[in-house]
């Protein structure tokens, strides 16, 4: 109940907060004066954002927030996390409760426009899939007519699900749970025949939550495009730029071959592209209003995109797939840092 109250707190905040005047303080100034970044993450999705056994948050969505902290403060540890359910996430960002929403959130036009958010980019290209118990012996989503489906409300998943069954003239019964834990509990207890979410989520929960991972299969059809990425509030261009280029710097670092292990030696690299990246030449950092070694700090402390993927997602059985770099046949592509 306490968690659910957040959406209402957000509403109250919108009623009470004094509106910011044009040209008023940017989030970056607010973040600098309070000394940390408040990062909205998933309540617990292995590989994306989940506390480890020591209570430290881990995952690629967490790494994005740490990367921004490293760029802004030179210290990736200056992040505090707010776990958010699917239903709370947008209100939490809108009302200023969090500075970045980095919570496996699909970038769509309605969210980008009418919700008052700006998506900065994509840190995981995903698509929606279906998981069923192996014993049902189902091979394709086309066999799911009449099935009971566990799904989380307020997600693109819920809408795609209805669209897909409508388009294929099939019927289904949804059972919706706000919390992933409850939805999974119901699916594993047999309340639903099918669990649906992004394929990344299916892989993660099958590896981390299923009583026996081998008893569940993910069906081959992927029914939607789900570009997942971090978002910030609309109308704060300085903060938007900083978060956007922090994400790009992680991708660019991988392309340049810079890792947390070797970036130190590359401070004296003779490659002019790398020189600009690590801040040895040029003033890219100043353009963002940050220290010129922002990208160096980011790679040094958090690592490049590939490292983050390998550390967080590969152990769960994730394949790089379309999330490879563009020059290796994937979609990860950062505009030039110059």
């Amino acid at each position, binding site marked *: 109940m306490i968690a659910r109250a957040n959406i209402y707190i957000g509403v109250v905040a919108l009623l009470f907060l004094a509106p910011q005047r044009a040209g008023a303080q940017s989030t970056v100034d607010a973040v600098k004066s309070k000394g940390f970044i408040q990062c909205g993450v998933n309540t617990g999705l292995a590989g994306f954002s989940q506390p480890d056994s020591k209570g430290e948050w881990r995952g690629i969505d967490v790494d994005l927030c740490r990367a921004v902290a490293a760029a802004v403060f030179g210290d990736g540890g200056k992040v505090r996390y707010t776990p958010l359910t699917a239903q709370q996430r947008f209100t939490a960002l809108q009302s200023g409760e969090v500075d970045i929403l980095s919570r496996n959130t699909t970038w769509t036009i309605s969210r980008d426009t009418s919700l008052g958010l700006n998506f900065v980019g994509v840190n995981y290209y995903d698509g929606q899939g279906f998981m069923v118990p192996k014993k049902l012996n189902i091979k394709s989503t086309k066999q799911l007519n009449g099935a009971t489906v566990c799904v989380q409300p307020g997600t693109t998943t819920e809408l795609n699900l209805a*669209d897909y069954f409508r388009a294929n003239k099939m019927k289904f019964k949804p059972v919706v749970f706000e919390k992933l834990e409850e939805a999974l509990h119901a699916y594993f207890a047999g309340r639903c025949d099918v669990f649906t979410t992004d394929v990344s989520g299916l892989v993660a929960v099958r590896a981390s939550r299923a009583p026996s991972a081998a008893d569940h299969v993910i069906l081959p059809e992927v029914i939607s495009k789900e570009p997942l990425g971090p978002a910030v509030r609309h109308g704060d261009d300085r903060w938007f730029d900083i978060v956007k280029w922090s994400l790009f710097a992680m991708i660019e670092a991988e392309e340049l071959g810079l890792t947390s292990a070797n970036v130190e030696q590359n401070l004296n690299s003779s490659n002019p592209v790398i020189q600009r990246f690590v801040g040895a030449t040029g003033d890219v950092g100043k353009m963002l209003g940050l220290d010129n070694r922002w990208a160096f700090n980011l790679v040094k402390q958090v690592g490049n995109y590939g490292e983050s993927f390998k550390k967080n997602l590969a152990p769960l059985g994730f394949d790089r797939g379309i999330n490879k770099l563009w020059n290796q046949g994937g979609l990860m592509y950062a505009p030039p840092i110059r």
Partner: protein
Amino acid sequence: MLNPFPRLACSLSNERCRNVAYQSLLALAVGLAAWYFAANAAANLQERNIASGFRFLWREAGFEISETTLFSYSAADTYLRALAVGLLNTFRVAVVGIALATVLGSVIGLARLSRNWLLAKLAASYVELIRNVPLLVQLFFWYSIITENLPAPAQALNPLPGVFLSNRGVAFPVPRPHSAYVWIGAALMAGVVLAIMLKRWAWHGRQGMDRRFPIIAAGAAATIGFPLALYLGAPLEWSRPALTGFNFSGGAALSPEFAALLAGLIIYTAAFVAEIVRAGIMAVDRGQFEAADALGLSSRQTMRFVILPQALRVIVPPMTSQYLNLTKNSSLAVAIGYPDLVSIANTMMNQTGQAIEGVAIIMLVYLTISLTIAAFMNWYNRRVLQRGGDA
């Protein structure tokens, strides 16, 4: 010369003037606060580029809802219709819940007053246990009992012919729709009207308790008899549930979510109702029992004509708050996946981002429901006070 401002003679030392002045000030302050919040929210929304207004209610909702009451609904319908489905789902659980919680609560309250030691202690432990465990925990408990312990549809339990119990809920046969059912409905209405008229007549014609007309029996006969006669004459066909594919189709079904929510609300609220009933009866002076005894009334007559009319005066007002509580507690449905008003509104807020409008709708709806229940109970309370009741 005439005073051009005769009303200015009104000063703060005059009590009526003072009251008017203070009340105007208060009204002004409330109005200003409301204006401030509205203007502030509008400015915040505009500055953050968040859409506002209620036009979104007529857009396509795009999500499915697992169960509906009376209405049909599909993902192609509007948000407004989705909200109506949620509201009716709330009504369904609240109406059934209030009726059953009252019955169960009264039985337990009476049991707690029983002279049978075991029965009284059992009722007391029920009240203490249930009242002191949070409702949310109880809901999870009932829900997991259903989903974890019942078998899958393919191995469904079959306790009665045609009735199937599985972790998808209870599926049971229902009569197939037939044109005669309209007439049965009409006969039911006619029976109810007749029963009310009978009661009026019996009330006026009554001289004393010993010459009572058997109003309950006659009323029940009228209410049930007519439709039953028609029903038995009509061709009766059953729609039976049968396992097809993933689940049962045909017949009717109660979902585990509805069952768990209903069970949780009834059992929880009944504990409070029991205490209210007990307190109401204990509030009646012991002498009233003895006097009724001395008059030679049977224990049923004592309860009905002496004790309950007096106890109801104590019972009805706190009962109103229990009914309001049950209705509002039904919003915990969201935790176990029952699509009530709050659950649907939460989803809607998330899909459209229009949280202020969504919360306003939820508040308005619950306020309306609560005020309606309160108005009805106040009317009933006045009636109990005036006429001494006819329980």
